[in-house]
Structure formats: structure tokens, C-alpha cells
């Protein structure tokens, strides 16, 4: 009687952990989650007080001239309105992370749904999806979100709105094109035929056979989308200034207005700007690293034009 043998093959999971980009990206994301969690903890402990100097909205330290540079009391200094920068950073992380998560979800959902249906149905459905996603590549989601955002009352345009809008627009473009190509390759594999032979229709085939194989590709696209979304939201806040929700972009606005950008002037509270810019870059970078790391492991063929059709 045959004995079951287990061939030696390095599991994808092991390769994930050994990929430096993926690991550092995850580490950074964890860092930001900790930062988000830190704010309420700090407020409850170190920054305790009825009228606390560390309130991200109205805190004002009467002992110091504002804006003040980094010091023992204010590790990242204060802005021109007297607010402690560390507090603002930990507080605004929440908004930016919310944008990131909602954008990632939106991108993933859009590209998975469209990519899988287009690959399964082929024919005119595939044509339409391909052409639309080809066209959407030329409309940068950042600019589109910017156009929407500028006219809006930004406080009503919440993190979720920004994230989902960006994710939706980005997802329709490059993300769907990539996932569709991957889905087409999966559809060529015999186990899809086998599923059809078992009587599986579109629903079952797509959900149980196609989608599981597309998740890594969609994850890559989602991560790259998130990086874009964080930047888009920050830019929107940066340009909208006072009306914006407090996110990292707002910090940059605080530290440096448009006009001062070009002047490259350092009289401005550069510590505020750097904190904001660093926050944006690191958060976007974290997700981008995860995406690129995932792509190295799962996705080598997704970019190959020969693999399509």
C-alpha cells in the first residue's frame, strides 16, 4: 500500500519571513499602530491634567515661547499655536492610519471583484473591464481626490471617505489590470476545468478556486494603493490648511506653507514640518515595503506582458 510521502518544499510562509522588505514594512506598520494606541495612554498617564498642556487641539504651555524647538518638556517642540508636537503626532496618526486601512480595503475589493469576473466571463465583460481599467490608469487618483477634496468641507470629508474614494479610483486602474492578468493565468490551470466538471458555476469557481489564488496579487496592489492614499490625504490636508482634519498633512501645512516651500526657508518651525513629513513618508513607505516584498515572493509574473491573454 502506498505510503504518504511529503515532498520537501519551502513553504511560502518561510520565504515571507525571510524577506527584508516585507518584515521591515510590517514592523513599521506595527510601530504606527503602537503610536495610535499611545495617544490615549499618554493622555491618561504622562499628560494627565485637567487643562493639560499636551492637548492636541488647545494645549498651550505658558512657560515657553511658541513655536518652541525640541526640549525636555516637548520632545518634538511646539507649533505656532502652542500645541505639543508629539501629542499632535500621536493624535494625527489615527487619522492617517484610518485612511490607509480604508483605502487598502477599497483597492483590494475593487480589483478582486473586477479582475476575477473579467477573467471568468471573458467576452465582452472582459473587454469592458480591460478598457476601463486601461483608461483609469491615466487619471491619477491623487489628482482626482484632490479635485473632489478642494471644494468640499473637509471636516465632513472623513478619513473613511478619502480612503475609500482613493482606493476605489486607484483600484479601478493599475490594480485591476494586474489582478485580471493574474486571474487569467489561474483560469488556465486544469483545476478550474476540474471544478467545472464537478458542476461548479461562476459563484463557486470564483470564490473557492479563483479568489484564493488572487489574494496575494490583490494584497500587493492594495499596499501600493495605501501608500498613494496616505500621500493623497496628506497633500489634501496640506493644501487645505485650517479646514483639514488633523492628520500628518496638516502638520506639514503647519510647518511650511506653499510659499515657504520654494523659499526653502528655515525660520519656520521645521521640527513640525519634519515630523509631519516623516510620518507621511514612513507610513506610506511601510505599506509600500509590504507590497514590494509580497510582490517579490508571490507576483513575479504579474508584470509580464507575455503572460496576458
Amino acid at each position, binding site marked *: 500500500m502506498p505510503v504518504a510521502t511529503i515532498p520537501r518544499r519551502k513553504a511560502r510562509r518561510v520565504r515571507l519571513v525571510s524577506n*527584508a*522588505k516585507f518584515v521591515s514594512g510590517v514592523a513599521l506598520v506595527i510601530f504606527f499602530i503602537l503610536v495610535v494606541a499611545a495617544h490615549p495612554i499618554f493622555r491618561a498617564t504622562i499628560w494627565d491634567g485637567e487643562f493639560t498642556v499636551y492637548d492636541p487641539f488647545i494645549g498651550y504651555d505658558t512657560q515657553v515661547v511658541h513655536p518652541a524647538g525640541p526640549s525636555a518638556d516637548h520632545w518634538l517642540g511646539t507649533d505656532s499655536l502652542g500645541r505639543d508636537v508629539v501629542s499632535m503626532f500621536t493624535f494625527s496618526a489615527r487619522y492617517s492610519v484610518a485612511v490607509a486601512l480604508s483605502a487598502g480595503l477599497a483597492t483590494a475589493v475593487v480589483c478582486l471583484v473586477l479582475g476575477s469576473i473579467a477573467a471568468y466571463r471573458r467576452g465582452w465583460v472582459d473587454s469592458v473591464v480591460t*478598457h*476601463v481599467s*486601461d*483608461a*483609469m*490608469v*491615466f*487619471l*491619477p*487618483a*491623487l*489628482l*482626482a481626490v*484632490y*479635485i*473632489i477634496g*478642494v*471644494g*468640499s*468641507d473637509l471636516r465632513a470629508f472623513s478619513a473613511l471617505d478619502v480612503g475609500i474614494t482613493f482606493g476605489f479610483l*486607484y483600484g479601478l*486602474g*493599475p490594480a485591476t*489590470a*494586474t489582478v485580471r492578468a493574474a486571474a487569467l493565468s489561474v483560469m488556465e490551470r486544469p483545476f478550474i476545468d476540474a471544478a467545472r466538471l464537478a458542476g461548479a458555476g461562476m459563484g463557486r469557481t470564483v470564490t473557492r478556486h479563483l479568489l484564493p489564488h488572487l489574494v496575494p496579487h490583490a494584497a500587493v496592489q492594495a499596499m501600493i494603493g495605501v*501608500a*498613494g492614499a496616505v*500621500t*493623497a490625504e496628506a*497633500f489634501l490636508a*496640506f493644501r487645505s490648511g485650517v479646514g483639514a482634519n488633523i492628520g500628518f498633512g496638516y502638520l*506639514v501645512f503647519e510647518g*511650511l506653507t*506653499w510659499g515657504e*516651500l*520654494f*523659499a*526653502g526657508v*528655515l525660520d519656520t518651525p521645521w521640527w513640525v*514640518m519634519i515630523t*509631519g*513629513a516623516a510620518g*507621511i*513618508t514612513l507610513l*506610506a*513607505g511601510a505599506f*509600500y*515595503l509590504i507590497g*514590494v516584498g509580497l*510582490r*517579490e515572493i508571490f*507576483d*513575479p*509574473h504579474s*508584470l*509580464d*506582458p*507575455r503572460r496576458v491573454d
Partner: protein
Amino acid sequence: MSLVETSEAAPRRARFPWIVVFLSRRAAWALITLAIYLMVVFVFIQVWVPFNFATPALQGGIEAYRAALESLGLDRPLSERLFEFVGGLIRGDLGTSFTGQPVWDLISDTAPVTIFVFAVGALLAFVAGEAMGRFGAWHRHPVTGSALSTIGVLFTTIFPPFLVFLIAFFLRDPFWELREAIGLPVDSLDVWRDAAVEQNEVLLLMSLAFLGAVVAGVLVRTWAHRQRARWVAAMAIPVTIIAAAAGIWLAGFGVEAIDLLYRSDISQTVATGSPLLVLVGVVLITFGQVMFIMRVGIEDQRNEDYVLTARAKGLAESAVRDRHVARNALAPTIAGSFLALPTVIAGMVIIEFGLEVRGLSWAFFNAVETQDIPTIMGVLVILGVMGILLRVAADVAIAHLDPRLRRT
């Protein structure tokens, strides 16, 4: 069994070079995609956005909202607006801006700089990213690999206004000093006051010359490889670019061309930004993405059997890497890099505006601030056209590299 394998007759030699049929197919694709893109832009600006543009006016009541819509030209029936849009496009008319100027004038005024920066920047970024991906991925040196990756990620995800700040802070003064050292007058106006040509004309000339030089260089290089003239092939592209530059100089536009790259205006009546600095910014934000995609391609190819064969034949590592593996990884890299286009365009627009270069970004941001719908649409249309042309060029490049794709 017979020892000789015969086959059916060889395929007929095509009457035209493959590129003719290929381009006509891509032209059809381009037109369809452009049509869909224009519809998307139209729906986006005329249907989606107005809710956002006019909603703040709601606070003043329904009347104020309607008035806002009217001033935006958005109260007219959708079909009427659609006819106007499409009709205008067919005539080549992009409508009239709310400021009274025809949109086309605004765009033709500002687009050349952006086109120049985009074309040159994208190409340079691709070359740099591809080279870094190639070297970094092949030799697997842990330190350089990580360093390159880190720098790549950093510049890809850096907050664009912050990058603008860094460029302005670190590079602008040295650039101005360099300008003086070359011998250009301090004020750009001095250069252009007596010039016989328009700035935009020179910019377009520079763009075309650069692109033409690259295409010519690639063709010469391909021919040289077939003739086994290794050195000619290696020098082909640099030589053509230098030739193009020399051509511009000899045509008498040399000083103007260099000035355009640098720009300096004390009187501040002309935008003071330097397109060269924008170029630096564009290359910085793009090279990383290309590098990562190239790296994936190389990693994918390096395990193929033909690599083993090449080494066994005695080829030097660099030859295996460059002439075989990199060449095969190049087509997917072009295709993959293209998917990063929206991020590049967005970043370019922000950097250009931040560095106060009067290009498409200037038209765009002004239009958005003032809710100038025709101009917003016009800019998006032009960006789309630029992108589609680039895509067709990229497809030609991919098909040139991989003959299997010439039939599509």
C-alpha cells in the same frame, strides 16, 4: 523513420515591417481608450465633482446652491454639456476657461515645459532604475541591496511637498552658482528679450530632439549588435544625444536652451522655477519603482536553464547578466513600470507646482482653486493624451524587445 525533419513552407515575408501593422493596431486601441478616458473625465467632472463643489453653498440654502451650480455651468442638462464637450473635442476646441481665455491657449502655453520634463525625466528614471535593479539584484550584495532598496522606497513614498522643500533647500543655490559659472546672464529676461524664438518653441524642440535622439540611438544600437560592432552599440545612444544637443547649439538656440533648463528671474515676472530641478524630482520619485520591478524580473529569470547554459559556454557574468537575463527582464519591467504612471504624474504635478515652474501644474492648481471646470477638464484631457502616447511608445519598445508580442 526518416532522419530528416521537414516542415511546411516558411511563412511569407511580410510586405511591411512589423511595426506598421503593430502601430495601426495600437492606434485603434489608443483611440478607444482615449474615448473611454474622456467619458470618465467628463462623468467625473460634470457629475461627481459638482456635488462637492457646490455643496458648501448649501449652507446658504437651496437658492445659493443653485446659483453656485449655475456659475459653474453645471445647471444645464447633462446631454447638452456632453454634446458641447464632444463637439468641441472633435473640433480641437477645449472650451473656454471661466477666466475668458480659451483653454487651449492656456494649455499650449504651459504644457511644453511639463512635456519636456515628463519625457526626459521618465526616460532617465527608467534607465537609472533599470540599471540599479540589474546590478542590485544580480550580485546579491547584502549591503548595496538593502541600501538601494531603502533609498528606492524612501524616494518613492516621500511626501512630494517635502521633497520640493529638500530640492529647493539643497540644490537651488548650487544650480544658480553653476548658471553664473557657465556665463549666463543673471536675469533670464536678458536672454529672452532679444531672442528670435518663443520659450515654448525651444522647449518643444528640445523635447523632440531628445526623443528623436533616443529612438535613433536605439535603432543604431540594434543594427550595430547585428553587425557585431560592440563598441558602436554601446556608444550609440550617448552619441545621438550629444549630436542632438550639438544640433540645437549650432542652430543658434544653445543659450536659450540652457537658460530654459535653469531659469532665473530676479524681477519675478517670470516663474522662477528651474525645470532642471523638477527633472531631478521626477527622476527621484520614479527610479525606485522601476528598480523594484526590474529586480523582480531579474530574480524571476535567473533560475532559468538558459542562464546555466550561458555560463557553461564561458560567458562572463556581466555578459550573462546584461545580454541575456536583463534583456529578458526588460520587457516586463517596461510593462510593469507603466502601471506606476499615475503616481508619477501626480508627483510630477506637485513637484512642478512646488518649484514654481509654470507648467501644466500651474494651470491645474489654479483651475481647481477657482473651480474653473473647463480648464480642469482640459488639463486632464492633455494628461490623458500624453499618457496614452507614452503607452503606445512603451508597447512599441516592448514589442521591439520581445518578438513574440509583435502579433498583438
